[in-house]
């Protein structure tokens, strides 16, 4: 009996000690602490790769909704006249209609064509020269660029913090009573990761629910054929339609814009620009980093006969035969490129002005 009593006492003491210790540990935990928003279920259409979402910025319903509101809100520009959507219009696959260069809040034009904002979550570096090292860091570029929204980060954050609506929305998405630069970058990046295109006629054809015409099928074959279009070296067929690498495609032999070189200062990167995705390519004219070509025919003419043999020309192109495509070949390739238009994407209500 003594032993039994003793064991009960020990048990009680041990329980008490555990409780005290557990309580001591719990002291750090604030019951009101932010535990994260509602996880956002991202649906990736078949055919597209897995998206690597950074662990420090998981998608949440609140974060994506906030990013969408910010994307369309001119509050981020210095004089509240422009938003991201001013130059990235959903109807044109988030490019700036048919403009070669976009005009910023001070009436000054930029020097590069507004990029197609499609499937950004699969890409590693942003801007035509890859200067932005991640999607979050990209956000501060256009906000601060004097020829775009021309606003200081400090003022942008101040405007958000003194707004009647944003502090509550940021708190729901990220917790905390004060909006900071990280939260701004994270929200917009979250929305951008949801902007996925994977339901073009071509995608439907791959899934067996649509058929391509004989001309479109021929165009697809020429697109892949190394002795004809030879497009797939860079515009990888079947998913993102880009390797998202930096290539010199022979636009010039003397560079007015040195491209990737500006970021790396490597001579070998002179005249290199990011391979753009060809998704929705029929909607994103004009083409190339400087919007020099207004039609897809001009682009194909360039790759067929127009490219320059500069010192940094991509090896694939430097060994390609000039004049390898006939006029009919190019017409068929364009017919195939037109199958990459995703009308569900440009009409998706989830990407519209909230």
């Amino acid at each position, binding site marked *: 009996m003594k032993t039994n009593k003793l064991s009960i006492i020990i*048990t009680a003491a041990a329980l008490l000690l*555990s409780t005290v210790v*557990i309580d001591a540990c719990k002291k750090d935990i604030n019951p009101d602490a932010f535990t994260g928003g509602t996880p956002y279920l991202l649906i990736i259409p078949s055919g597209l790769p897995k998206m690597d979402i950074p662990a420090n910025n998981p998608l949440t319903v609140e974060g994506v909704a906030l990013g969408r509101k910010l994307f369309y809100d001119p509050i981020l520009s210095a004089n509240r006249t422009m938003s991201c959507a001013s130059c990235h219009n959903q109807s044109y696959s988030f490019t700036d209609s048919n403009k070669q260069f976009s005009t910023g809040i001070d009436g000054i034009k930029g020097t590069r064509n507004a990029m197609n904002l499609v499937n950004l979550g699969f890409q590693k570096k942003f*801007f035509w020269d890859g200067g*932005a090292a*991640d999607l979050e860091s990209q956000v501060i570029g256009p906000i601060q660029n004097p020829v775009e929204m021309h606003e200081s980060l400090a003022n942008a954050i101040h405007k958000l913090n003194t707004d009647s609506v944003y502090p509550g929305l940021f708190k729901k998405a990220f917790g905390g009573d004060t909006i900071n630069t990280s939260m701004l970058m994270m929200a917009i990046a979250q929305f951008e990761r949801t902007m996925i295109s994977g339901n073009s006629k071509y995608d439907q054809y791959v899934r067996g629910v649509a058929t391509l015409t004989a001309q479109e099928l021929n165009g697809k074959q020429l697109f892949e054929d190394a002795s004809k279009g030879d497009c797939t070296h860079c515009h990888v067929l079947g998913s993102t339609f880009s390797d998202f690498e930096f290539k010199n495609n022979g636009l010039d032999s003397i560079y007015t814009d040195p491209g990737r070189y500006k*970021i790396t200062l490597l001579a070998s990167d002179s005249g290199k620009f990011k391979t753009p995705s060809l998704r929705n390519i029929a909607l994103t004219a004009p083409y190339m980093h400087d919007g020099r070509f207004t039609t897809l025919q001009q682009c194909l003419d360039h790759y067929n006969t127009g490219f320059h043999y500069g010192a940094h020309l991509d090896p694939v192109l430097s060994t390609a035969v000039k004049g390898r495509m006939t006029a009919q070949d190019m017409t068929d390739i364009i017919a195939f490129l037109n199958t990459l238009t995703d009308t569900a994407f440009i009409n998706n209500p989830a990407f519209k002005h909230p």
Partner: protein
Amino acid sequence: MNIYSSINKFAGITLITGAILFSSCRTKDKINGITPEIKNYGSLTVKVSNEAGGQPITFGTMSFTNAAGNKYSVDLLKYFVSNFTLIRNDGSERNFGNYKLIDASDTSTCSFTLDSVANGSYKAIRFYLGVDSLHNHTVLNQGDLNPISGMVWSWNTGYIFFKHEGSYINDTGTSKILLYHFGTDAALSTVDIPITQFDINSNKKTLYIKFDLNSLYNAPNTINFTGNNFHQSTELSDRIWLGNLRTNFSSSFTFDKVQ
């Protein structure tokens, strides 16, 4: 009996659980695996004074002359000091892994405190002038690395390690802009300050170091502002300037005292 034996087992499990919980709480109190002992550790404050030719920096006046003979002014002077490391007499090192943005116009930014510094004798200080590549490839950072400071490039993700903006008098006597924005991974500069010996203890817990702009523009590479007055680290023509400044940073910092 069965019930009591169960209770005994339960007591044992509870004790073990308690012990595990207790020790897991203890682990939290350790810093870098070392349990601090009050007598042997303390905080150390590092204070940086900013000078040019031994004179305190005054802003907006053409008050300084570099070794090349250029008169110049300072409107803005900011730089990052990171991974502050103390090297003990026995050669062992402690890297505090910190990131400090110093704004010479605001003395409240010119000091930082390191926690749990071991008392004893030291022989050298080392730190980076700049931000290591681990933190230089995103601006999704807060604290001193918050991009709101303006110490980032918005078109090329990364921190501007060092910024001096002002003006200088060129060869023909005209005042011209001086804009030095120094950075990129390749420009990360290691500053080594060897010191004969210094002690850190409860009576000596503030370390004073000096940064001198004229030294930065003097040794070992003399920087002449003429035709060399505008650099943003993004052109091939910036490369020589980047290399020269990178080398010069070590001699621009000196140990003053510990007290």
